[in-house]
């Protein structure tokens, strides 16, 4: 067989293979074969490694919320203030500590809200 006929035969054979493989029955059998021997991966979002960023974000949120819910019993020291409130507590109610400048004189106010306010 000369080279021209060989090429034609090869082309015909290739076309026939492509038509056979493209048949719906063959494609279905191919799909079933792959599913049986190579099952699809689970959704990546359910993998433990995928949850790490979400868990980290949740941890940050929890710390932020719990930090806001704390009720400190000691006042934060202010070394530079003329009156540094080192500790304040009351059995009568919540306490407010604030400082203002009045005519260049720093004034510290410690006020207990026991049914009244300033």
């Amino acid at each position, binding site marked *: 067989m000369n080279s021209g006929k060989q090429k034609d035969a090869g082309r015909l054979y290739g076309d026939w293979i492509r038509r056979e493989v493209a048949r719906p029955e063959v494609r279905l059998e191919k799909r079933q074969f792959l599913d049986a021997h190579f099952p699809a991966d689970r959704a990546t979002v359910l993998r433990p490694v995928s949850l790490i960023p979400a868990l980290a974000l949740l941890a940050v949120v929890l710390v932020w919320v719990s930090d806001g819910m704390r009720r400190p019993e000691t006042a934060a*020291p202010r070394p530079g*203030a*003329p*009156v*540094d*409130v*080192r*500790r*304040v*507590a*009351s*059995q*009568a109610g919540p*306490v407010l500590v604030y400082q*203002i400048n*009045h*005519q260049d*004189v*720093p*004034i*510290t*106010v*410690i*006020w*207990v809200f*026991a*049914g*009244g306010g*300033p």
Partner: protein
Amino acid sequence: MNLTVLRLPRLADGVRLVLTLIWLTAGPQLMAAEPVRLTATVLMASHQGSDYDLDNDAFRDRLIQLFSYSHYRQLDARVLTLPKAERVRLALPEGYELILTLQGIEKTRILTQAVIRKGHKAYVDTILAILSPGVAFLGGPPVEGGTLIIVLETGY
């Protein structure tokens, strides 16, 4: 006329060094030995009336800025000497009392505990490190006709 010049003997360098070290270490303790004084002024504030019955006019402007009361009356003003670790009490109206305790001295600050108490209940219990001069307002225990405000000052 002969003038006799009295010459003091020069201290040896070692003696001067020792004296300097003694001064550096004992200085703070010597300073702490001086009595600590605090001025406590007791005011009653209310919304009834518009008078400012105060001995110290300097309080007036401060009170106007700090609080919304319209009437102030000075009930008492004392200069209290605070011995170390001893409680100094000042009686307040309607069974309240102010208790001041000198906790110590930190460099230039006076460490004082100030408690306003009625019976067994501590209305306020605070520890203040006061830089001289310094002023703090404590309040306000409710009393008949108004609210008590205690002004603590040092160095003024």
